[in-house]
Each structure stands twice: as C-alpha cells, then as structure tokens.
C-alpha cells in the first residue's frame, strides 16, 4: 500500500496492482508512463487517470461504449504488440481489454470525448496505450451526451 497525491481526491492509498503502465506514454505526455485508474461511485461511469509522477495531471475518461454503444475498435498491430494482446485480430473484451475515451471540457459547460484516439488497456497485463485510429470514422471531439451522473440522468438516459 502506497500513498498518492491526487488532483481531485486529496491523498489516496493504492495497491501496486492498480497501476497501469503506458510504455510509450501519451502524445504530448510521453514521459508519463504510469497512471492509477480511480473510479468514484458518484461520478460513474467516469474514470480518473491520475499520473503517478505529477499530482496535477489527471485525465477524465469514459468507457467508449458509454459514449457510443456501437463503437468499433481499430487498434494497429504496433499498439497490439505494446499491449501484449493477440497481433492477428482486433482486441476483444474477453481478452481483458478495456477502451476509454479521454474527456475534454470546453468553457466549463460542455464536454467532448476523443473517440479517434481511445486509451486501450490490457487489464490482465496492466498495460495501456493511446491507440490512434488511422481512419476518419470517429471524431476527436465527439459530444458527450450523457455522463451518467445518477440524479440528473435518472429517467433521461
């Protein structure tokens, strides 16, 4: 058990097994190679990607399926190799794969999710990569229609 300074939740303790390795970092954050994923019931389905090296760096993310239920992954062979997932086909949930879209806030009152470059995670190996799509099928600023915050969302989504 180790203590971690977080951007939003003060000091938290975490287990080594809740740390995810980003072997190649993220574009613009190439040095950030380790994140703890924080899930808080009142903010579900949001996932907070807290950097281990910088308390002030914490991404908000949503499972791609909560942004677009019909989302189809396209992960390059290079990214599959980083994730240590099967090279010959697209990753599937049964591989222990999870895909998250990073959320951006605009002017404090609207949000978009980056479906063009989802964070794809191999939960079993605790490895993650930002898998940039080569096609133009999804937007890097997809409007977030519903964050799923329980009290507001009830009956609406």
């Amino acid at each position: 058990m180790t203590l971690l300074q977080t951007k939003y939740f003060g000091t938290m303790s975490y287990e080594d097994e809740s740390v995810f390795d980003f072997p190649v970092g993220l574009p613009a954050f190439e040095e950030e190679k380790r994140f703890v994923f924080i899930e808080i019931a009142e903010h579900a389905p949001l996932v907070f990607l807290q950097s281990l090296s910088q308390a002030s760096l914490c991404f908000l993310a949503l499972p791609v399926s909560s942004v677009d239920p019909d989302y189809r992954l396209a992960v390059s062979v290079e990214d599959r190799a980083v994730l240590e997932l099967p090279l010959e086909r697209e990753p599937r949930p049964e591989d222990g794969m999870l895909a998250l879209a990073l959320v951006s806030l605009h002017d404090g009152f609207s949000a978009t999710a980056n479906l063009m470059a989802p964070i794809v995670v191999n939960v079993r190996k605790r490895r993650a990569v930002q898998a940039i799509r080569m096609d133009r099928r999804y937007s890097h600023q997809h409007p977030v229609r519903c964050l799923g915050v329980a009290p507001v969302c009830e009956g609406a989504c």
Partner: protein
Amino acid sequence: MLVLRRRAGESLLIGDDIEIEMLELTPQGAKIGIRAPRETIVLRKELKITREQNAQAARGPESGDLGKALPGIFAQQLKNLPSNR
C-alpha cells in the same frame, strides 16, 4: 487544395528540398516515401490532433471544482439534447 494524380514510383516535389514518392498503392492505403531536410518535421496529422486534444483534456476542471463542474456540464448536455437515447 492542389490535387494531382500520381502512380506508384512517381514523385512530386515541394519547394527545393522536399520530395514525396509514391512507393506502393493498394486498396488498404498508399505507402509514401518522404525525403526532406532533417529539421523539417513530418508528422501524421492524427498524431498532431491527438497531442493537441490531450493537452486540452489534461487541463480539466480545477482541482477544487470537480463537484461543481461535472453536474454543470451534464445539465448543459441534457438541455442541448434533441432526444435522449
């Protein structure tokens, strides 16, 4: 935008010192070779977009404002929605 048709093995020049050669064309995509001075930055466009979008995502709400920011965003989204899923 200038549009040119090129076949595999053909090149085009941009300025004096940038050459773009079509190496291979398949229905899956075009393989392109680029000859340019070392100081010229060659970047896949989607990587540049991802860098910029990540920088914006990293800004997020201020550390004390999370509780305020999220319901606000959410209420706004609902208002803008013509119909919910």
